[in-house]
């Protein structure tokens, strides 16, 4: 496994993005709205017809059949569709789809795998609940459970905390980090909350206008200068225990 190389040229949204994510690493992509973060994730997830430049664990993404790719890459979308009436168990079982033969049905092994994942995420008591009745934090855990049930080692998280309060944001990110350590997962995420992003990522990549404008460790990327240039934001960056803390400051008017 050599990691991941992305170079999307030609598409209007991402122009010549180079990105390598090492196995077991957590890389967070940041950037202002419209920078192309979600597009980048969709491309890696094989949802866009531009995967020629993408290599997954040494295999060109284009050479993978969709099912095989689904066993390697799992995506948690920014706001996944919550099908009405579907139970948590059935929803997480959808994650087994790449292992279920076409037109077939789940085996006992699939159901066992799902119960194992539910147990790991403290969701065992929830399996009969209807997904639509869960709170935002519980739902996010269920979405993660479905991705884990896919058995993929590369996890793509698009704004995993955008719908959560600050406590649940930390819960979810701690959980992802714990899972990553225990199971050797590779995480590629996009985030808007820069302080949180910096606390959990090994490396960060800042996108702007479809190009990489900065890449490196959180302290290298989260600088007042870069954020002022690309986010047009007025911030203070304070060193913290786990990474720089980005504090918005109201601009002083002349």
């Amino acid at each position, binding site marked *: 496994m050599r990691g991941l190389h992305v170079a999307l040229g030609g598409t209007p949204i991402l122009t010549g993005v180079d990105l390598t994510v090492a196995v077991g690493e957590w890389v967070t992509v940041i950037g202002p709205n419209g920078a192309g973060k979600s597009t980048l994730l969709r491309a890696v997830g094989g949802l866009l017809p531009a995967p020629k430049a993408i290599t997954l664990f040494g295999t060109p993404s284009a050479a993978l059949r969709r099912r095989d790719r689904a066993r390697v890459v799992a995506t948690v979308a920014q706001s996944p569709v919550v099908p009405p009436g579907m139970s948590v168990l059935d929803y997480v079982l959808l994650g087994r*789809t790449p292992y279920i033969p076409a037109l*077939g049905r789940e085996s006992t092994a699939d159901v066992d795998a799902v119960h194992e994942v539910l147990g790991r995420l403290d969701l065992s008591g929830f399996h009969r609940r209807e997904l639509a009745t869960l709170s935002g934090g519980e739902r996010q855990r269920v979405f993660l459970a479905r991705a884990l049930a896919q058995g993929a080692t590369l996890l793509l998280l698009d704004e995993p905390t955008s719908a959560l309060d600050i406590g649940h944001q930390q819960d979810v990110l701690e959980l992802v980090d714990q899972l990553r350590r225990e199971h050797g997962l590779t995480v590629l995420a996009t985030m808007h909350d820069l302080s949180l992003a910096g606390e959990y990522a090994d490396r960060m990549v800042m996108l702007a206008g479809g190009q990489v404008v900065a890449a490196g460790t959180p302290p290298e990327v989260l600088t007042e200068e870069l954020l002022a240039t690309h986010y047009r934001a007025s911030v203070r960056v304070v060193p913290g225990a786990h990474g720089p803390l980005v504090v918005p400051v109201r601009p002083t008017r002349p």
Partner: protein
Amino acid sequence: MTGPLSAARPAGLRKRWLVAGLFAVLVALVVGVSLGPVSLPPGSVAAELLNLFPGVHLDSGLTEREIAIVTELRLPRVVLGLLVGGLLALAGGCYQGVFRNPLADPYLLGVAAGAGLAVTAAIALGGAGRQGTLSGLPMTIPLAAFAGSLLAVTMTYVLGAAGGRRGSPAMLILAGVAVSAFLSAGQTYLLQRHADSIQPVYSWLLGRLATAGWHDVLLVLPYAVLTTVVVLLHRRELDVLAVGDDEARSLGLHPQRTRYLLIAAASLGTAAAVSATGLIGFVGIIVPHTVRLLAGSSYRVILPMSLLFGGAFLALTDVVARTVAAPSELPIGVVTALLGGPFFVLVLRTARRVLT
């Protein structure tokens, strides 16, 4: 109550629901064959139906003439009702899943209107049914209806997508209504130009099982089998499609490919049903929703149960249609709407009470 989950098992057809569905079909079969201008004792009818199986010989106590009524007149009519009702409900449930739209059904999508126009054209221009009866429909009629229904569903889909915001439920239904109106206008125009076919076309349009013989059953059967097999094989895929195309794709499916295949299958079923019995509304929307409210929202439940309950519902509706105003018959399309509407409201209210 959260649906059919009685244990930590994946969604699927529970045995009790399957038994209930099969029981409904059996009841419809016996009741449908027993009741009519000449009422026959249900026990004898059941015995006579068992006699149709090879190797079974029971004494039903029916006369030769009564046996002929059972096997040549009523049985094909009931079987056709089961087939058509099952197909319409199955197609409705399938469309609802494929379009992720609870309002989708063969009528609202314009599929039935497309099939109707095609059949009208075949009758008016092709001269089929000139003799005032359609019992001898040529085998090509379902194919014409299939072409018409595919054309209609494609128009609806394209029109619905052209309004921007793909997948918006309202846009799709709006497009379906527009396509329906357009195709119905074409049908009216054709009828105006060919006044001699008004009578056969009109009696067909209102929905008829009256003239059904084994010929019609054989006409519908191959299409029914094909549609049922294709749709039921994809029941799990429809559950995956419920989470959206992007998610389905990242789970390794080909949503668009599955969608086209299922649209074609459901349209084929609709076309076969429409070409055999005319326009019978309401079954395609109320049966799947009733199943959804009672038995759960997974397509692994909805589709097979719609097939069984849709068939039973239409066969029983037909009993009402031919007995209420005997000796004349009510158009079955009228009865499905008259019975189905209040029934659906009842189910909706009860289910909501149970759920809250």
